[in-house]
């Protein structure tokens, strides 16, 4: 079966319809079949309809995503209660250890990400990975800083990513490699993202899975959960009526 390549973090400005059209068309031309666009929590229906329309024309599967940046675990829980049923992907940028731990153990969180420029606040250690592996949360790595940073900051980032990727692989936490890009010229083909993943020692199979199978699995699982017939994992309503 042919792989579907996915970029779960295409940072388009929802209000700028030209940029949306350009970037979605380019993603389609580069070979992506599935794209997640982060919507602001208060995005209007008109804005989301426009993005959906552009994706339909470009024959690309659109996934709605929201990026949460809570300050405390309580903020995170409140945001999750409010937004879980409205978005297909929930990503949490963990800027403190308590938020990172809460996000890793909450089954409603799909992707964990960490600050790219502040290496002391990258809390993806073994304890975090164990919590995440029990709750099926994925570890998201954005490629953007690998392209934009140079010299010492890039070396430090690669060093952190290498350690974190090894931990994630050890605990079977799915790694999702996304672009995190808002500039058209920084967009890369899926296999190029996979090639960049080799910089933090992902082998070629894991790297290709990180841009295809792993993100697709997250989306599939969440779409099943958001389906009206879903009851619990493995249980779904087949038929409604008196003769059931």
């Amino acid at each position, binding site marked *: 079966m042919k792989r579907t390549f996915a970029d779960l973090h295409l940072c388009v400005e929802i209000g700028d319809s030209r940029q949306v059209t350009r970037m979605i068309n380019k993603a389609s031309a*580069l070979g992506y079949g599935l794209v997640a666009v982060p919507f602001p929590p208060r995005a209007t229906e008109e804005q989301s309809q426009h993005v959906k329309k552009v994706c339909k024309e470009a024959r690309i599967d659109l996934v709605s995503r929201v990026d949460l940046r809570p300050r405390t675990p309580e903020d995170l829980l409140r945001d999750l209660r409010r937004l879980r049923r409205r978005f297909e992907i929930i990503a949490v940028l963990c800027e403190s250890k308590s938020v990172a731990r809460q996000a890793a153990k909450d089954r409603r969180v799909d992707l964990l990400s960490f600050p790219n420029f502040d290496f002391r606040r990258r809390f993806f250690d073994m304890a975090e990975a164990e919590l995440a592996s029990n709750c099926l949360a994925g570890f998201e790595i954005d490629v953007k800083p690998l392209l934009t940073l140079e010299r010492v900051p890039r070396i430090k980032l690669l060093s952190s990513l290498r350690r974190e990727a090894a931990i994630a692989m050890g605990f079977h936490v799915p790694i999702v490699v996304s672009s995190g890009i808002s500039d058209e*010229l920084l*967009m*890369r*083909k899926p296999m*190029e*993202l996979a090639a*960049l993943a*080799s910089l933090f020692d992902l082998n*070629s199979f894991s790297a290709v899975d990180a841009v295809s199978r792993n993100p697709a699995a997250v989306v599939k699982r969440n779409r099943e959960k958001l389906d009206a017939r879903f009851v619990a994992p493995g249980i779904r309503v087949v038929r409604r009526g008196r003769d059931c």
Partner: protein
Amino acid sequence: MLKRVKRRYLAVAIDSGEAIGSGEFMDAVWIAVSKLYGEYGASRAGLSLISYDEEKQFVVVRADHTSLETVRTALASITKIANKPAAVHVLRVSGTIRALHKKTKR
């Protein structure tokens, strides 16, 4: 006995709004490889320019087959060529130039 050197030919497209010369392109490639893998890694890549179509921004580059992933990664990391914003995309990879041209025509 010396082992036969196997090579790979990469068809590459340059994505930039501005005109870029072959020298500028190869400079950018060498800089990218040496930034990521150092001079030792760059020396092992066996890079050379085979053909350059300035009009179509289409390039064929040769690399050592053991360094193919190195070169791919370095090409993906290029964001500027001669201080002009640009991206480089690998279109096809092949073992011979003839097969590469067949694949790219398709």
